[in-house]
């Protein structure tokens, strides 16, 4: 009995966040609905910065969802909608920032760090491999 209640509580906990946000279909056309859901999952709620506007029930997120619905129904492309948001809120509004001069560093940095680390690792491994086995212990102490 207790187990069942615990299970029910867990299920309830998991569902609240989904219930909080409008879940009704925005478009009858499944293609538009899919675009809508993808877009709102990639736009940051500026008021609650670590949530997308799909996850947030702040009124600003609701307003932005409404604007995106309007723009989709007016036939704007995803690119145009992204432009609309970036013009008003900056590149930060997009969870996947586009590659521009300003965001280039953001895109390149992880690969640069990986290369840097890989190079360091290569140097260390090479260096150790060349050490005579006896001196290895002395070198490390």
């Amino acid at each position, binding site marked *: 009995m207790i187990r069942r209640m615990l299970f029910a509580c867990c299920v309830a906990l998991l569902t609240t966040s989904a219930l909080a946000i409008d879940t009704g279909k925005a478009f009858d056309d499944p293609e538009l609905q899919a675009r809508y859901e993808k877009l709102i999952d990639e736009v940051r709620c*500026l*008021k609650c*910065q670590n949530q997308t506007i799909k996850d947030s029930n702040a*009124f*600003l997120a609701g*307003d*932005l969802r*409404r*604007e995106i619905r309007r723009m989709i129904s007016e036939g704007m492309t995803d690119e145009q909608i992204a432009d609309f948001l*970036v*013009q*008003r*809120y*900056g590149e*930060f509004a997009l969870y996947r920032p586009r590659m521009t001069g300003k965001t280039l560093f953001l895109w390149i940095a992880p690969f640069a760090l990986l290369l*840097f680390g890989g190079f*360091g690792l290569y*140097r260390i491994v090479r*260096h150790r491999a060349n050490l005579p086995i006896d001196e290895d212990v002395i070198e490390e102490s």
Partner: protein
Amino acid sequence: MARHWWTVIGFVVLLGFLAFGLTRDPNILPSPFIGKPAPEFSLPTVLDPEKTIGTDVYRNQYALINVWATWCVGCRQEHAFLLRLAESGAIPIYGINWRDNRAEAMDWLQQLGNPYVASGYDADGRVGINWGVYGAPETFLLDPDGIVLYKHLGPLNRAAWEQDFVPLINGGAKK
């Protein structure tokens, strides 16, 4: 020994990025409108729905556009300063009443005083979005050509006014 320098330099560079990133307030977003023309708008005023306030009102003069709402705590904090600023005649203040209730907004202006030349009533937040507003209060400084010079986030006060707004206005006047 020399190869260790690379590790040290790499670590210091990383540390530099962290120091830069962690000491900035992530809630303060730079406005993409700085240096660009303010967005066009036209809204009915709070006090008289028959009248409208729009882009033309702040042309040919320096002006503040203050985004406010009765539900906004910071707006209550800055209200006394806005009243003093308006009284001093330093600059005309226009309001955008954002996502609010007209009756409550009218009460607010009647009870606390009205620092605004006029306030536009943006009930559905559409103008707010066009201005990139994400949290009231926000205050924009516009130059006589309608270019956005500065955006202040959070309650405005004398210190912020003198430090961030006045030099921009004086600097522009000398040109």
